[in-house]
């Protein structure tokens, strides 16, 4: 559609200006159209910038860079594939990207949750058979 193209051009034009001028935000509004382009944190060009704020995740690692595995759905957290089986992962254990770390049951479906990171399980944040929200942190993984 022609309309899409016009919009695309305008947005690109604004994005170019953002870059060229070292801005962090442009808002533009005209007859029935509103465009906002922004780039968080770093401004291009001369300006020096404060380091990006670490999002507060409430947790310990003093020094620590860690990653979180978060729940992609609402459901019930299970540490193992069955009550008799050993947990998929244990605190202090090593995980590889793609490895199943737990199961979230939602609507009778067992959803295997995989690690997005290679590393060590620094902490498990949820008890077995506990309910979890969308986006709730489940594990903290520290890099090797």
């Amino acid at each position, binding site marked *: 559609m022609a309309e899409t193209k016009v919009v695309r051009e305008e947005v690109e034009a604004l994005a170019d200006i953002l870059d060229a001028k070292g801005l962090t935000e442009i808002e533009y509004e005209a007859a*029935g159209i509103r465009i906002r382009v922004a780039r968080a944190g770093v401004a291009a060009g001369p300006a020096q910038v404060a380091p990006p704020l670490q999002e507060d995740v409430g947790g310990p690692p003093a020094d620590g860079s860690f990653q979180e595995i978060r729940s992609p*759905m*609402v*459901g*019930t957290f299970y540490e193992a594939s069955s009550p008799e089986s050993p947990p998929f992962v244990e605190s202090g254990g090593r995980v590889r990207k793609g490895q199943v770390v737990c199961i979230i049951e939602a*609507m009778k479906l067992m959803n295997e949750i995989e690690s997005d990171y290679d590393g060590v399980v620094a902490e498990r944040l949820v008890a077995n058979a506990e*309910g979890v929200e*969308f*986006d709730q942190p489940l594990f903290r993984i520290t890099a090797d």
Partner: protein
Amino acid sequence: MFEKVLIANRGEIALRIIAACRDLGVKTVAVYSTADRDSLHVTHADEAICIGGAESSRSYLNIPAIISAAEIADADAIHPGYGFLAEDARFAEICRDCGIRFIGPNPDSIRLMGDKALARKAASDAGIPVLPGSPEPLHASSQARAVADEIGFPVILKASMGGGGRGMRIVRDPHDLESAFGQARSEAGAAFSNTDIYLEKYVERPRHIEFQVLGDEHGNVISLGERECSIQRRHQKLLEEAPANAFDADTREHIGQILADALQAIGYSNAGTVEFLMDDERKLYFIELNARIQVEHPVTEAVTGIDLVRSQLLLAAGEPLGSVVPDAVEIRGHAIECRVNAEDPETFLPSAGKIERFAAPGGPGIRVDSAAYSGWTVQPHYDSLVAKVTAHAGTRGAAIRRMRRALSMCVLEGVKTSIPLHQRILEDPRFVAGAYDTRFIEELEL
């Protein structure tokens, strides 16, 4: 009564349901999207569970997430509010299958009312007046002509599968019927791969009248009278009243009884709204039944004194109608609701953004339903309703004056709102006279 109700909605209606639950001593579970973390329904519910991302499809329309939330919170019922999943028969079925009470009609009623053709037929069979027209698709313009001659012009041709005006033609002159029929068929064929066309009487300047009904699980249905919702822009209601203008008690009684009988016959339960067109001879024609609580329910609450959301909860829990509503429902005074939307008054687009200052109007006769507060952000992902202001008084004139006063004393800064439009409506002589129809807004805006 339920122990704990999950509210599968957001905004003012979620607060409204929390209020009804709290009045009954029932615990509440809010669900929310990542965009709604700072919302009042999250603050006020006893528990709150994040169910997904900002887009409705990932959160408030995400059936597995909502059911899972109900399961982990151990909720025994779900109130769907309006919009989102409120009229999704499949959702109602899934709730039932999961042993969670869906607070609304049974899935069969929802499904029946969701199919406009079936609903119309059921209504007609039950003696509810419907627009005269062809009950079955028409295959030739001669058939169309025969029906049109019988019911009288103007008529409207509609594609059976239609929507958005395509395959639709209004015919005022019999001579135009044949060519209009051909055009409608080819448009319908192109748009929906189906050339079925049906024909109905066309009402030139209809008024929108709707009846509030309540039914229990034991075969009893009652009508709580009507509302008038003719103040619409692009089929979005802006202002509603109860009772309707110059609506006589006999008609209220008569239609109410027909509706109660018809809905009893199909086993309808919980709250519902039966929508009608009214022509200039004040004849009513069934359009559809909305199988849920309605945005504008406060005007009926004001004039009847009946708490409709509380009634929904009680009825869903199996209470008989006789213990939920008084024996004789009396209509007292007049009520008007204005839907204050955050929207651009020129473009009608949602005016998303942060509310810099909000002070709701108060004083006698004013009720406010709102999830807004200073510092709250109107989300672009959802509808633009910021506050419902309801004015109730002994007479319509006094209710209009109270509403004007309330809107003039509503502080809402940081977003554009529909208040100036509402103020124009409330000053318009046709509105003040109660002599308006669904074309009021388009004529006001000329």
